[in-house]
């Protein structure tokens, strides 16, 4: 019954961060690899918004790039609507590509400054051959109005727009190939707070109107809470907890999730006791053994330093923590 749009299975991506060959030989160093994404598995159902949250360097953006094919996975598979993505050229991949799109973080970098807005939005239409001639202009005008801009804006250059308007243009471009699934990589983090809500509400309206499925990448828990149905929490390239949005905020299972939630400042100054965030995300080139969170974890046990914990089912998802399987105090 479950209609899965995107299934990610055991996704792993390592980067070679070795010094140049000559330095390695002279300094007797070994090759060094950074595991940015480590054995990540999740699925996204049609029509929902799945959010990935985590600190800087947790591998959020790498996952986004892997899914849209900007990076090749080292291991693991990505399947879109049941079809594995190969990212080789070919008509099958071409047809798949039309059905997913991406919205980028920085609206000042994501629009080619030398192109007119109309050309920018028309690029996917032309690349996929969805329309030709005057139909392209009509479609561009329609899309501009869908995202709350004016049809006459097509003749302008990106620098004539504000950050929020540029992000609307980027959304119009993403919609122009009539996709089903959109990867949103921190779509509001470069925007003013007052504009963020407008863009997020626009994205929600468009989701209802076109039946879109979103993968939302964000470090901002308030954005995630506003948008997501389900949330995956990333730490050092691994998913430590997946749960329904409400459940995650009210009843976090993993100590890292709890720490993240405690770190959100609230204006009410409720005076509730918080566990302050301690430490920083470790160097991913040389991650801690076992559960990579153990050096920062307030509940660390001996077993945490051994093998990494497996995903344990929770009420609405899963979490990878020995607290859920081992009796406390063992």
């Amino acid at each position, binding site marked *: 019954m479950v209609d899965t749009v995107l299934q990610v299975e055991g996704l792993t991506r390592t980067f070679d961060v070795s010094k140049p060959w000559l330095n390695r030989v002279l300094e007797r160093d070994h090759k060094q690899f950074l595991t940015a994404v480590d054995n990540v598995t999740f699925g996204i159902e049609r029509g929902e918004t799945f959010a990935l949250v985590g600190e800087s360097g947790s591998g959020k953006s790498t996952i986004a790039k892997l899914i849209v*094919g900007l990076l090749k996975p080292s291991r693991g598979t990505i399947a879109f609507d049941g079809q594995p993505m190969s990212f080789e050229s070919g008509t099958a991949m071409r047809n798949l590509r*039309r059905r997913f*799109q991406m919205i980028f973080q920085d609206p000042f970098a994501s629009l080619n400054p*030398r192109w007119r807005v109309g050309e*920018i939005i028309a690029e*996917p239409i032309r690349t996929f051959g969805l329309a030709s001639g005057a139909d392209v202009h009509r479609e561009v005008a329609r899309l501009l109005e869908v995202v709350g801009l004016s049809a006459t804006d097509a*003749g302008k250059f990106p620098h004539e727009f504000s950050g929020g308007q540029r992000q609307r243009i980027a959304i119009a471009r993403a919609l122009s190939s009539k996709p089903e699934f959109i990867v949103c990589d921190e779509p509001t983090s470069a925007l003013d707070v007052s504009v963020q809500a407008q863009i997020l509400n626009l994205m929600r309206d468009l989701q209802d109107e076109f039946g879109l499925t979103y993968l939302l990448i964000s470090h901002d828990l308030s954005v995630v809470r506003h948008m997501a149905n389900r949330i995956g929490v990333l730490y050092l390239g691994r998913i430590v907890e997946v749960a329904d949005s409400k459940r995650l905020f009210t009843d976090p299972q993993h100590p890292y999730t709890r720490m993240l939630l405690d770190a959100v400042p609230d204006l009410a100054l409720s005076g509730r006791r918080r566990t302050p965030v301690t430490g920083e995300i470790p160097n991913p080139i040389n991650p801690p053994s076992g559960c990579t969170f153990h050096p920062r974890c307030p509940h660390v046990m001996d077993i945490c330093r051994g093998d990494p914990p497996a995903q344990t089912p929770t009420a609405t998802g899963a979490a990878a923590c020995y607290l859920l399987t081992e009796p406390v105090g063992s």
Partner: protein
Amino acid sequence: MSQTEQSQTERGKTPGRLARAWDSDIAWSFRHSPVAIVAGAVSVLIILAAIFAPLIAPHDPFNPATLNLMDGFTPPMEPNAFTGNVYWLGTDNQGRDVFSTILYGARISLFVGFAAVILAMVLGIAAGLVAGYRGGWVDGLLMRFADVQLTFPSILLALLIFGIARGFIPPAYREEMAIWVLIVAIGLSDWVQYARVVRGATMVEKNKEYVQAAKVIGAHPAKIVLRHILPNVLGPVLVIATIGLALAIIAEATLSFLGVGVPPTQPSLGTLIRIGQGFLFSGEWWILLFPSITLLALALSVNLLGDWLRDALNPRLR
């Protein structure tokens, strides 16, 4: 009512190309830089004079039928002792009007300069785009080649290319091919700086999100490079091209002065200077001086224009 309102706002939003060009930052910077105005005026004057040389020149210096050896060595603005003819800038040993030879000489100098810069630009931009976008061993190979070429002075390299090319061309065609060989020699010795700048700019641009957006929809790499990246790396290229034009004109003059450039039957400014320096110590100073001043004015004004353009296009200096 609403119809007219809309057409008015549209007219207000899209003024003519000329008006927009006049309003642009570059035009503003130009209007407020006396150096750029003077340098621009001198460059345009010399370029126009060179283009319309056949119409402007009072004599045709390369038609032996119109030459009178008796007119030889006429000083500027003085009547010739035998014929009584007056020449503005005097004549050379063969009675050729120096002013006319300068016009025709500037024509050849500018043609060689522009053509060499275009050749260097095309080669350099292509190499820079490929190296910067592909990266890896392609980048390594192209850039090490460029490094090796940079270790030789470009004039030496031009001499080398010139010599090799002459070896391949049958003697009968050498005279008429000389200009093209010169262009290839200067162009091939100058491509490296374009390649380096374009490579650097390409490496910056290719990681920007608008390029990633094009990759996500599976746009062809050639299309990404030519339509997305190329327009965004042309700014700095324009600056080097302007300064490169001055350098190419000087390189041509140097080669012609050394006697390996264009043949004396189609003298460039460099050839004229070479001919003129032979008469310096016998007192006929004008044969050397006027071509030299023209070359100096041309190279200096183009160079100053390049400097101004570099500053005007550099957002950090605004």
